[in-house]
Structures are given as C-alpha cells and as structure tokens.
C-alpha cells in the first residue's frame, strides 16, 4: 500500500534540493566508468575531456521521481551511439543495425547509469523506463550536473537535470523591485 505524501519526503529544510547539493561530477563520472567497463568493455575508457557534440545527436534518458525529481540524459553522436550498440551486442551484432537495436542498447545504458545515480540520491524514489530521442530541455540551469567525456575519441555527455523550474515563479512584481520600490 502507498504511504501518504505527508510532505516529509521532500521537506528537507523547506527548500527543494538542487542536484549540485546531492551529487557531484566525480561521482557521475565514476558511475559512468563502472557502467562502461561492465557493459561496453573491460578496457574502455571515458576521458573527462569535453568535446563538441556533432549536429546529429541522439539521447537516451530515464526519469527519477522522489525528493529530487529530474532526468539522467546521455547524449552522443549517432555514429557513436551505433558504436555503443555494437559493443553491447557483441557477437550478436547484426551487419546492419536497426533503430530498435540502438534504442534498446543506448536506452539500457541510460537505465544502468540512471539507476546508479538514483541510488546515490536521497530516497525513496522511482525510476522510469528509458526513452530515446531528442534530449529533454534543461528546465533549471541551476539544477544541473553535467559530465562531458570522450569515448573512443567521440564526445558524450551525461546530464543529471532537474525537472522542476527554479523558484520563485512566476516572477512576481514584488521580487523584481529593488529596495526603493523601483522596478528593475
């Protein structure tokens, strides 16, 4: 049976935590490295060097709903996503990859990275099924933890982004007045 939402879950000091209070880039990097070693290959390396993502990218993501609510998004170029898929499929990789294969593999990587990020965040929380496509937009730039790496020379980004807009909103006239009551 579900326990009622008494506000306890999210009352941590009367404010909504942003992700930077809960997890850091080093942890996200470390999670990604563990996932790559296990799923992509023992000798795989993720260099913590930002690169410019190509124009044609694909993203996969899972949502986390709990004391912190948001999304763990992986983004990389289409070729790179195909490479990841082949690595995961191993001997089962067909000559021609289907969109379904990439959605499955890239989605599963998001699932495992996301699941481990979720485990590092305060609970209880729930994880959604993975989705693949155009990355969900960043809702609040202050609620964002992003790691950019190079995998086999290709840029890949892991973004842990909050789904709730920044407070206060909507900006009321009171909050945009300076001390003399002059509108800014």
């Amino acid at each position, binding site marked *: 049976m579900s326990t009622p939402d008494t506000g306890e879950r999210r009352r941590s000091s009367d404010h909504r935590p942003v992700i930077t209070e809960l997890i850091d880039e080093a942890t996200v990097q470390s999670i990604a490295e563990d996932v790559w070693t*296990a*799923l992509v290959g023992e000798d795989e390396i993720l260099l913590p060097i930002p690169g410019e993502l190509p124009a044609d990218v694909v993203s996969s993501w899972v949502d986390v709903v709990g004391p912190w609510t948001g999304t763990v998004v992986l983004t990389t170029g289409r070729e790179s996503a195909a490479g990841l898929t082949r690595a995961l499929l191993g001997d*089962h990789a067909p000559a021609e990859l289907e969109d379904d294969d990439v959605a*499955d593999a890239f989605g599963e990587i998001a699932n*495992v990275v996301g*699941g*481990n990020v979720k485990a590092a965040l305060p609970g209880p929380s729930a994880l959604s099924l993975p989705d693949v496509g155009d990355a969900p937009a960043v809702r609040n730039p202050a609620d964002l933890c992003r790691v950019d790496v190079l995998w086999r020379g290709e840029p890949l980004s892991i973004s842990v982004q909050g789904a709730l807009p920044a407070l206060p909103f909507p900006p009321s006239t009171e909050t945009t007045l300076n001390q003399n009551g002059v509108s800014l």
Partner: protein
Amino acid sequence: MKILVADDSRVMRQIVIRTLRQAGYDDHDIVEAEDGADALSKVSSEQPDLVLSDWNMPNMTGFECLQAMRSAGSVVPFGFVTSEGSPEMREKAASAGAMFLIAKPFTEDTFREHLDGMLA
C-alpha cells in the same frame, strides 16, 4: 536446470545469458521473457528452476511478477538483476520473497557469488 531471464531490453537479456556462461553456468536451459506479464506466464508454462528478472519493465514490473508468483503459492527461486541496487530496493526485494538482488553493472564474479549455492 532451467533459468528464466526477464528483461525488456533484448541486449541486456543477452548480456545476462553471456555472463551466466562466463561465470561457468553454461549447462542450463535458458528461457527469455520481455516483461513481467510474459515472465509470469512463462513461470507457469516453462516451470523454470530459477528466475532472473529486471525490476522496471512495461506491462508488469519484475516486482509485480514476483508478488503475483508468491501470492499464487509459487516458491520458485527469484533474483533481481536491476540498475537500482540501493539498500531500500534490496529490502523491498527480500520482503517480497526474492533471494537476491544483483545490481547492474555486474560482473561474472557477482553472478558466481549469488548463484553458486543454487546452480551446479
């Protein structure tokens, strides 16, 4: 022995099967299911000796499948293989009647650790 592997990701089912083999359990029949509902029906029709299941799946989650199995009186050993390995998930799994929870990403050693008692 017959092992039922349930995961909505085909690639992950392959990885689980591959890892079973790498861990030395290559002498068993494997049956696959792609969601909780499929798994539940195959528990009936295939009579596996062990179920290895993902947690989050469409149609019916692995957790719901386990609950349905135990409510129906099935004592088939069940272990989760899931991306969520927190203490609270492990507790939830154990309370519902799972024997173990293997967190992804896993290694063949993790598999041996949890399965050595059960599989030859």
